[in-house]
């Protein structure tokens, strides 16, 4: 390392100087870590706690009740929004996972002139700020005269989900041991059979995880939906946004808590699945990991 001589020089200077400070001791850092965790979790805890408040106040906790949850499920419009959000997330998950996985396979296995260009094009959506994504999608739909609706939201969500799937699945594909496939084909399997019986089972956990992540991202998305939503049925985050602008209500606490539950459990499942599936006797197929 280039800085070592400088460090040594400084050390020499320091030798006669003050005793070393306790900068590196964990006590100060431990306090900071504690404060950090309070700061991170307190706001979320407040939302969850007050979603069970029997009163309307956001200042005093009057007692436990689930009335804001029944308010939410009793509201026709909000129920429609919830269903719309789930619908969008589900369709996005299926289409983006299929397209993204195929794209990953193509990028790993084909070596034609198009693949480096495609690779760059696939990575850009990951770094584009959400508002840019929203504006470009909105302009596309208005310029080609497509009426804004759930369909336009789904189209936009798929576009910005493909890259996540591709990146995740590509990692798994690149780690595969190709010799297993060659062996399968030597034993008379067709390319399709090899894909179905050898490649797919090995990549499956990654595909599932990517799909679940896509579902969570789409269900949670606000900015892209905000720009591409129509007037009639709006997804849940857009609905929440417009009601927050008119003031804070306890029902939003309840919706927020429910949304947290959906996204955290989906992502937890996405993280856990590859491990659960990976353990079941697939070591032979997984290649690199098994070595």
């Amino acid at each position: 390392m280039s800085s070592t001589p400088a460090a040594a020089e400084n050390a020499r200077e320091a030798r006669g100087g003050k005793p070393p400070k306790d900068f590196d001791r964990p006590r100060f850092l431990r306090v900071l870590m504690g404060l950090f965790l309070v700061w991170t979790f307190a706001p979320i805890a407040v939302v969850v706690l007050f979603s069970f408040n029997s009163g309307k106040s956001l200042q005093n906790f009057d007692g436990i009740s689930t009335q804001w949850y029944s308010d939410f499920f009793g509201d026709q419009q909000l129920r429609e929004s919830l269903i719309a959000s789930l619908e969008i997330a589900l369709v996005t998950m299926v289409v983006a996972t299929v397209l993204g996985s195929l794209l990953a396979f193509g990028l790993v296995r084909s070596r034609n002139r198009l693949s480096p260009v495609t690779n760059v094009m696939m990575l850009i959506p990951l770094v584009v700020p959400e508002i840019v994504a929203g504006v470009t999608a909105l302009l596309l739909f208005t310029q080609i005269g497509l009426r804004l609706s759930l369909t336009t939201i789904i189209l936009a969500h798929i576009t910005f989900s493909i890259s996540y799937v591709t990146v995740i699945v590509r990692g798994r594909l690149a780690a595969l041991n190709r010799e297993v496939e060659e062996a399968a084909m030597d034993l008379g399997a067709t390319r399709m059979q090899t894909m179905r019986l050898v490649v797919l089972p090995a990549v499956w956990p990654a595909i599932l995880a990517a799909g679940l992540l896509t579902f969570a991202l789409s269900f949670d998305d606000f900015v892209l939906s905000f720009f591409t939503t129509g007037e009639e049925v709006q997804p849940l985050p857009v609905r929440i946004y417009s009601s927050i602008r008119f003031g804070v209500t306890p029902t939003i606490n309840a919706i927020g808590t429910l949304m947290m539950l959906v996204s955290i459990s989906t992502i937890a499942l996405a993280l856990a699945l590859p491990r659960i599936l990976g353990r079941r006797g697939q070591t032979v197929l997984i290649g690199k990991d098994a070595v």
Partner: protein
Amino acid sequence: MSERRFAGLTLLPGAGWLVLLFLIPLGITLAISFGVTDDLGNAVYAWRPENYSQVFDPLFVPVLLRSVGYAAATVTLCLLIGYPIAYFIARFGGKYKYLLVALVVLPFLVNYLIRVYAWVAILSDEGLINGILKDMGMTTDGVRFLNTPFAVVGGLVYGYMAFMILPVYAALDRMDSSLIEAGKDLYANGWQTFRHVTWPATFQGVLAGSVLVFLPAVGDFVSAQLLGGPDTYMVGNLIQQQFFEANNYPFGAALTTVLMAFLLIFMVFYLRSAGRASEEARA
């Protein structure tokens, strides 16, 4: 069919989708940014470069500068808070290391909108903190937290903190901790060891974290919309207004293009310095 041909075919649906729904829309945005609105308010293709001089109108320049300033402040605060947290987890986390990383990531899985809303519920005039302050008799009229730059930047820091902690943590975790021991053996004190050993070894992580925080922060409009007001609006709010209030799509497209161009230049600088740093590390 050879494997390569087959793989080339599987590339097509996804690539085609991205061309049609990502690349072409980028082109449309660029084209519309030179356009005009007709009498009905629809965006029409035209040649009106004045849209761009309007972006740099004295009316809007403060908003652009404010966006960059808020984003830079967000990066700085994320670094000042996030680095020690990452350092603690990587060096002293012990058997709780993965638990602590999970705790850092967990709130991040909660919808950004909900997390910003949580701060509205806490900081608003009828919010939790004002309630506590009134109960304690420290204030009668309440304290105004919202509509201040502090609230907006605070929302951004809260929203994007994990983007800083994770890459810095990864860099610290990768770093050979015997380097720190060596520094101490050479009589460097804690600060000197940090300054000459730890910081250079983790600088790439810091750079990556800064970019990951800066990119979404500079284009954010939710925090300024919910925690701030017209005096704290960022470029994202300005863009959003063109599409939902002013109905001036060409100007909105020009603002979006300027934002993209700015971020592109920023990314090029980042990639070049990252490339140079990894070359130095190899040398």
